C-alpha cells in the first residue's frame, strides 16, 4: 500500500514537468510579449526594457524555464503582474470560498442524486423511470449558463428569495445567505447527469444474483436496496465523485463570476483578462496537483470499499 502511494507520487513528477513545459511554451512562445500589454499607454523603449527586466523576460528561455521550475518547487510564484500582490497570498485568500462552494455543492448534489437514482432504479422500466430519464436528458441539454442567468434573474431578482450576488466575511453568513443560490443552481445543473449515471450503477447491481438471494430469504425491499445494492453501487459512484473535480471547477468558475464569489475561478478569469501570467500559471499548477492527488485518493478509496480490487 505504502509503496503503491510512493510509486504513484513518483509518477506524478513527469506529468507535472510536462504541464510546466506546456504552460511555459504557451505563455513564453505562443503568447507573445506581455510587456507591451503591461506598458500600456506609456509605451517607450526604456519602459519596455525596464518591464522586461522586472519580469525576467530579458533572460534566456532556458534560464526562464529554470526560474519557473524553481517557482514550482518552492511554490513561490513571485508577484502578480497586474496588482503586485504576492501570488501565494492571492491564492491563500481565494482558495477558501472555492473550496466551500465546491465541497458543499458536491455533498448536496451527491445526496439528492443518490436518492433519485435509487428510487428510479427501483422502479426500473416504469413510467416514473422513463419520465425521469427523459427529463434529465432535456435538463442536460440546457447550457449551464442558462441555468445561472435565469436562476439569478428569477430567484434572486424577481422573487427576491436570495441576494443577487455577494460574499461576506463570516463563515455562517456565507453559508446561509450567499451560498444557497449558487447551490440551488448548481444542483439543477449537476443532478440530471449524476442521476442518470448513478441509475445505471444501481440497475446493473440489481440484476445480480445476490439480490435475488436476498429477496428469496425474505429481506425487506428497503434493506435490499439500502444495504446490499447501495454498497455495491457505491463503488463506481465514489470513484466518479472523486474524479469529478475538473468538471466542478468549470462550474465553479462560472458561478464565482456570476455571484461575485471571491474564489480561485474569479481570480483566474481576472488574471486571464489582464494577461497576468504568473497568477494563471500558479493556479493551474495548484489545480493540476489537486486533480492528481484526487485521482490517487479515488484509487485508494476504491481499494478501501472494494477489497477485490488489486492495486498495481
Amino acid at each position, binding site marked *: 500500500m505504502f509503496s503503491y502511494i510512493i510509486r504513484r507520487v513518483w509518477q506524478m513528477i*513527469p*506529468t*507535472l514537468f*510536462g*504541464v510546466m*513545459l*506546456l*504552460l511555459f511554451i*504557451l*505563455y513564453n512562445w*505562443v*503568447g*507573445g510579449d506581455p510587456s507591451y500589454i503591461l506598458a500600456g499607454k506609456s509605451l517607450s523603449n526604456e519602459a519596455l526594457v525596464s518591464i522586461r527586466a522586472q519580469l525576467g523576460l530579458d533572460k534566456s528561455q532556458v534560464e526562464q524555464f529554470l526560474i519557473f521550475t524553481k517557482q514550482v518547487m518552492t511554490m513561490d510564484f513571485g508577484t502578480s503582474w497586474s496588482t503586485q500582490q504576492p501570488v501565494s497570498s492571492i491564492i491563500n485568500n481565494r482558495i477558501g470560498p472555492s473550496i466551500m462552494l465546491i465541497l458543499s455543492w458536491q455533498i448536496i448534489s451527491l445526496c439528492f442524486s443518490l436518492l433519485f437514482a435509487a428510487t428510479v432504479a427501483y422502479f426500473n422500466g416504469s413510467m416514473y423511470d422513463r419520465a425521469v430519464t427523459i427529463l434529465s*436528458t*432535456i435538463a*442536460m*441539454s*440546457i*447550457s*449551464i*449558463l*442558462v441555468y445561472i*442567468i*435565469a436562476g*439569478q*434573474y428569477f430567484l434572486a*431578482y424577481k422573487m427576491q428569495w436570495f441576494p443577487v450576488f455577494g460574499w461576506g466575511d463570516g463563515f455562517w453568513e456565507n453559508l446561509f445567505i450567499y451560498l444557497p443560490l449558487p447551490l440551488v443552481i448548481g444542483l439543477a445543473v449537476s443532478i440530471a447527469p449524476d442521476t442518470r449515471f448513478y441509475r445505471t450503477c444501481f440497475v446493473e447491481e440489481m440484476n445480480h444474483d445476490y439480490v435475488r438471494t436476498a429477496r428469496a430469504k425474505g429481506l425487506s425491499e428497503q434493506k435490499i436496496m439500502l444495504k446490499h445494492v447501495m454498497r455495491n453501487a457505491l463503488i463506481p459512484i465514489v470513484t466518479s465523485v472523486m474524479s469529478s*473535480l*475538473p*468538471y466542478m*471547477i*468549470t462550474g465553479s*468558475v*462560472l458561478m464565482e*463570476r456570476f455571484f461575485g464569489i471571491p474564489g480561485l475561478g474569479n481570480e*483566474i*478569469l481576472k488574471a*486571464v*483578462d489582464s*494577461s497576468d501570467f504568473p497568477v*494563471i500559471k500558479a*493556479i*493551474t499548477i495548484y*489545480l*493540476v496537483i489537486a*486533480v*492528481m492527488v484526487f485521482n490517487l485518493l479515488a484509487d485508494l478509496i476504491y481499494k478501501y470499499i472494494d477489497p477485490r480490487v488489486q492495486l498495481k
Partner: protein
Amino acid sequence: MTSQTDNSNLTDESSTQSRSLRSLAWKRLKKDRVGMTSLVIVIFFILLSIVAWASDEQDDELFDDADPLAALLAEAEDNAEQYEIEEEPKLETLLLGSDGRGRDILQKTLKGTSVSVTVALFGSFCAILIGTLLGAISGYFGKWVDDILMWFYSIFTSIPDMLLLLSFAVVFQRGIGTLILIFALTSWTSVYRLMRAEFMKHKSREYVQAADAIGAGGSRKMFLHILPNVSHILLVQFSILTVGLIKSEVVLSFLGFGVDIKQTSWGAMLAEVPSELLQGYWWQMVTVTVFMSILVTAFSLLTDSLRDALDPKVK
C-alpha cells in the same frame, strides 16, 4: 421484443449473405424511431448552418430589416416635415422579436446556430483526427513511442478542461479558426485513449497477421486494415464530442474568448442576456435555449441510438 426480432433477422441474413457491420447498424438504426427522429433533426441543423454560411452577407444587414423605433421615428419625422410621404415602410414586428439593439433574433439565432454547429463539428472532427492518429501510433508501435504519447496524454488530462481551454484561449486571437484549434487541441484525449486500446487489441489479431504475411507496411495495416474495424467507435465518439463542444463553445464565447466580435454564436448571444433580462427582454434567451437544447437533445439521443445500433451486445 425488438432484440428478438433483430436476432431472427440477423440469422436469416447471415444464412443468405453476410452483411457488413455498417449496413446492419443502419438497418438497426432505421428501426429505432427515436434515433431516426434525432438523426433528421441533427441533419436539419447541419443543413441550416450550411445554408446560413452560403447566404453569408454583411453583418450590418441585421440592423436593416426591422426597426422597433420605426413607429416613433416616423412620428418624429412627421412632426418635423409635415405631410411628407414615407418611402419604404419598415417591419414593425419580427417573428421572434429583436434584441436590445434592434436586431432580428430569428436571423441572429440562425447565424449563431451556424457558427456554433460549425465550430463544434469541425472541432470534434479535428480532435478525432489527432486522437486517432496518436492512438493508432501509440497502440500499434507500443514501447517507447507509447510511453511518450502516454506522457502527452497524462499532461493534457491532468489539467482541468476549463483551465486548459482558458490557457489556450488567452494566447490565441479570437475567432472561429482559433476556437476549432483550441477544441481540437484540448479534446483529443478521450479518442486517443479508446483508439490506443483498440489498436493494441487488434494488432495481434489474425487478419492483421495475414496482412503482415502478404507484406503490408505499418501504416497500411494501421489505417487500411485496423482502422475500418474500429471506426464505429469513432462515430459514437464524434457525436459525444460534438455535444460537449457545443456546450464548451457557449461558455467560452460567453466569457469573451470565443468567436470574433463581428460574428455571433449561441454563447455570444447568451452573453447579452443578463443585461437584457433586467429590462425584461427574455425572448433572446428563450430562443437560443430552445434551439440549443433541441440540437443537444437530438445529438445525445442519436449518440445512444448509434451506440445501440453499432454495438448490439451492450444494452
